């Protein structure tokens, strides 16, 4: 029976029976897509197994990777008045098979609360190009700025397109992660202390990476009609 189970798992794309150690909660977007697919609409028309309608991209597998990076400076130790948060982000995407083509990579930063009258923050997201010693990681050689934007906590989540970066991360040697920095907006920091400035951002909950991949063996291009 075990041998038969192994053969079946292999045909489903597993080398062995998965054994999750500390499974995270299932992201709501995956529940939503799953319920849509398993709902009544699936009976009405034949589903396209190689296109994710909900995200409007070609693909057959959707994965959500939890962030395995660490805070560079924990909140409690933090006294730098110009910065609220600095965090490494790392997503181990090695489970994406070599044959799979990444068609979408989306980073989500999630906060536990949103507010219309919250403070304004500056955000910078860097791609790490090389590992450096502690305190030496700010040179242009070691990281590349991907995003610099201002935001207010109007929405619980911020999303960033990382499709091209995920494609390059399929080479594990190039996957050195990202660095996220959040600062209080300079104009608003005159009268208050750094602790007050960063209070809202301490609702920061987690980061995750959603990827969609296409397996060309499963999803062959239709032949052109003459």
């Amino acid at each position, binding site marked *: 029976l075990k041998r038969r189970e192994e053969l079946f798992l292999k045909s489903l794309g597993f080398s062995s*029976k998965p054994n*999750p150690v500390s*499974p995270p909660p299932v992201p709501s977007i995956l529940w939503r897509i*799953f319920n849509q697919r*398993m709902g009544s609409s699936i009976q009405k028309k034949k589903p396209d197994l190689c296109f994710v309608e909900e995200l409007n991209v070609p693909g057959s597998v959707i*994965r*959500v990777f*939890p962030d395995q990076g660490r805070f560079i400076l924990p909140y409690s130790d933090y006294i730098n008045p110009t910065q609220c948060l600095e965090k490494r982000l790392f997503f181990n995407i090695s489970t994406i098979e070599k044959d799979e083509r990444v068609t979408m990579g989306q980073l989500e930063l999630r906060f536990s609360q949103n507010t219309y009258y919250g403070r304004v923050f500056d955000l910078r997201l860097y791609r790490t190009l090389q590992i450096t010693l502690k305190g030496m990681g700010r040179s242009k050689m070691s990281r590349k700025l991907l995003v610099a934007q201002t935001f207010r906590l109007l929405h619980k989540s911020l999303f960033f397109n990382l499709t091209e970066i995920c494609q390059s991360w399929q080479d594990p040697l190039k996957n050195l992660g990202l660095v996220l920095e959040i600062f209080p907006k300079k104009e608003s920091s005159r009268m208050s202390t750094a602790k007050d400035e960063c209070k809202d951002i301490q609702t920061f909950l987690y980061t995750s990476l959603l990827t969609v991949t296409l397996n060309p063996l*499963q999803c062959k291009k239709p032949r052109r009609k003459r």
Partner: protein
Amino acid sequence: SYSKMPFTASNICKKRRLYVEFKDVGWQNWVIAPQGYMANYCYGDCPYPLTEILNGSNHAILQTLVHSIEPEDIPLPCCVPTKMSPISMLFYDNNDNVVLRHYENMAVDECGC
């Protein structure tokens, strides 16, 4: 003649109900959803002559004909799935990532000879 057929409606080839509960196969630790699904299976005889309800292929019809001539050498056709559908599965992989994936040909919708 149909009246001489030794086959009854209960043992001819058709779809049989099979619900697979992932808990029963010890997969509940990593399969998040669904908890189980209607997999079904095909079972039954494909007698001579093949009628329309048995959904026989041209080859199966020919095989039953040859079987009637050479019953010891040529077996009757098999009862197999003729239409299958995919299911979506939400699961954890070995690295605790959450994955949503379609798997083709997981549920039997129709059977035939």
